[in-house]
């Protein structure tokens, strides 16, 4: 009886265990079936995006009012302002096309993130001031109601420009222009400079210009994401794909001299899906070229620059990518919180990064020694040969340092006069250029986005007049030079 009851119990136990495991597996099957049922029910409700035709995921819509080529900070700024200033809800359908979802080569995110008002052109100063005002109230503009507030990690340390005796008069003229327009800048003599920043070697410096307010650096990725999230919450379509061509219609027009020109109007933008040959022609009314370093390629697809030389059609868009290196160094004796964004007249720049004695430094190479732009590899010899000697001479504590990292990024360099190109081309009716910033795109992006949207929606500039940045100056060979580029 003993053994029998034990074996009965064992049998009962194993039976129970089997039943439980069967129950568990049945439960698991039931769960997954319920889940599948719930998903099907959700797809059947109105408001879901199920369709019986199998469409490739990620295709852009077939029709859009405004297509923005380039999903960097400038493209998303334009998209945000378009949605902000449209008079009717869903008045314009905006599509932003970005070729790289990882943003691995995008200039916006590889930037040092500085913002300054110390320019020599009135338009540049006004753009920076307006952008600083935008960033001051960024949560009023770009705050999405349930999300965390936007935290740009803005360091208000100011920019410090150092001038040699031959550049000092230019700096003084720039100072008067900047003060007149409302930028808070002061000039420092070498003694005042030494008193304020004892770690600078004031040999060969005649004058320094220091920004007191609205200058510093911030996190560019946060700004890009904030623009993107806010624009998408307002209804902007995003597509990851590459623009491979345009389909245009053209009309003959006669100039006042009697020549005949072909005026093009873009009808379709061909957007090719990543890793695929499939493309979608997007019918559009306006195209905005915010492609940054690749803007030249986009303009080339339209035939700008393919005409006979000495004519309007023969002058290409003078924007090309230029590679710039940024080096992260660690210096234990370096300056602390008071370190501004220092820019020397010899060309190198330096700023503090974080609180641990790390700094970011770099320099623009000479015109003749521009590095190869086919990849983003870093040339460390450039730091040792060119940057470090200048750094040591100007800032003695940096004689002992260690390079802990480096990266490279592209400038969308305007070879004509290193200033922005904002406006339409006379031979292409509906393409707006927002490019050629040569390193200042990030700091001017909020204000330039608003200006371009005023141009598109209102027909002319309302707040800041950027007609000096029109494409016509390139056709007339009249450069407007900015004397304070880094």
């Amino acid at each position, binding site marked *: 009886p003993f053994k029998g009851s034990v074996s009965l119990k064992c049998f009962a136990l194993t039976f129970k265990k089997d039943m439980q495991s069967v129950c568990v597996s049945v439960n698991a099957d039931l769960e997954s079936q319920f889940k599948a049922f719930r998903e099907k029910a959700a797809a059947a409700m109105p408001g879901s995006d199920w369709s019986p035709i199998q469409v490739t995921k990620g295709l852009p819509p077939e029709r859009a009012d405004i297509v923005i080529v380039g999903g960097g900070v400038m493209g998303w700024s334009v998209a945000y302002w378009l949605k902000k200033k449209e008079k009717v809800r869903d008045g314009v359908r905006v599509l932003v096309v970005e070729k790289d979802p990882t943003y691995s080569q995008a200039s916006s995110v590889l930037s040092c993130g500085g913002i300054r008002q110390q320019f020599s052109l009135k338009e540049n100063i006004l753009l920076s001031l307006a952008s600083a005002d935008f960033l*001051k109230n960024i*949560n009023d503009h770009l705050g999405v109601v349930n999300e965390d507030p936007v935290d740009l990690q803005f360091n*208000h340390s100011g920019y410090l420009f150092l001038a040699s005796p031959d550049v000092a008069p230019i700096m003084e003229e720039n100072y008067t222009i900047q003060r007149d327009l409302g930028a808070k800048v002061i000039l420092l003599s070498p003694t005042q400079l030494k008193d304020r920043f004892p770690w600078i070697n004031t040999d060969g410096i005649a004058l320094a210009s220091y920004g007191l307010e609205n200058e510093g650096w911030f996190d560019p990725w946060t700004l890009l994401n904030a623009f993107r999230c806010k624009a998408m919450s307002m209804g902007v379509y995003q597509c990851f794909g590459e623009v491979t061509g345009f389909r245009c219609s053209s009309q003959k027009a006669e100039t006042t001299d009697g020549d005949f020109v072909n005026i093009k109007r873009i009808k379709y933008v061909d957007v090719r899906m990543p890793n695929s040959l499939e493309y979608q022609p997007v019918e559009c009314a306006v195209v905005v070229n915010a492609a940054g370093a690749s803007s030249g390629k986009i303009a080339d697809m339209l035939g700008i620059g393919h005409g006979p030389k000495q004519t309007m059609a023969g002058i290409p868009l003078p924007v090309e990518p230029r590679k710039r290196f940024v080096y992260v160094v660690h210096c234990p004796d370096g300056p602390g919180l008071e370190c501004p964004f220092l820019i020397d007249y010899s060309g190198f720049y330096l700023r503090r990064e974080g609180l641990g004695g790390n700094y970011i430094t770099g320099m623009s190479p000479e015109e003749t020694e521009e590095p190869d732009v086919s990849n983003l590899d870093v040339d460390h010899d450039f730091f040792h040969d060119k940057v470090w000697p200048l750094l040591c001479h100007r800032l003695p504590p940096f004689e002992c340092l260690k390079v802990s990292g480096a990266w490279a990024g592209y400038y969308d360099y305007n070879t004509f006069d290193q200033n922005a190109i904002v406006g339409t081309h006379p031979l292409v009716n509906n393409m707006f250029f927002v490019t050629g910033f040569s390193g200042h795109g990030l700091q001017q992006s909020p204000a330039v986005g608003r200006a371009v949207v005023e141009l598109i929606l209102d027909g002319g500039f309302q707040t800041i007049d950027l007609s000096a940045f029109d494409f016509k100056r390139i056709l007339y060979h009249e450069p407007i030079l900015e004397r304070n580029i880094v």
Partner: protein
Amino acid sequence: MAAPVLCQMRRRCPVVAYLSVVRREYASSPPSPPSLFSRFLFQLNQHFHDVEHLINWSSWLRNRVVRRKNVFYGYTQKRFGVNVAAAYYILGLGGGFRFAGHSDWFRPDSRGKFSYDFLNTPNSTIEEIDLSRTLINHAGLENIVSQNELRSLSLQGCPEVDDWFLARLHVFGESLQWLDLSHCPHITVGGLAALQHLRKLRRLDVSSLPRLQNPGLVRILLEEMLPHCEVIGADYEQGLILTDNVEEAEPVRHK
């Protein structure tokens, strides 16, 4: 950072919005789970534009109070002079001040009423300002920048004072000696870096700044930046992981 609750970025639907809006204070406590009403409102928000607009309006209305408190007193400045305008503005906010050369403070009473005696002395500038727990922000500072003999400023517990406010304090660079920034929830290291223009600063209070992750390190850097200034409110050990002291193991987050 407090994690946002449920964010679904659908192509055309707006982002989740709750009526009990996430305030702009970085409280250290985690957010409470959304109530039934909030979840119901979220469903409505996904489907109706009207609900979305209402929710946007409610957050705009919330900011209206702050904006009204910080409006520029241009007419008062033109009519009575900058000193009277600054005095009127400070009293309107609920703060207190003391004129240079006098020893009595002007403050509103508990109901917000104040006497207009400051009108009798339009030429005396203000020497000490107490703006603790008021709604001043960087726009409102425009009313006070004319007081270039300001020696002491207290901003204890002001919820709207942020880094941009500190960046504007450079106008007091020649006179400010005492600055109290304790309990301000929006100040970070980036704003404290802007205090380098205050060369005459002798006492700086940075206690209980919730967004400072390494208060001890920040104190050292501030003392280096302003050599004649005494920085109080942060111990050198705050923010450090002490290997021999188990209870003081606060995690350190490096930038």
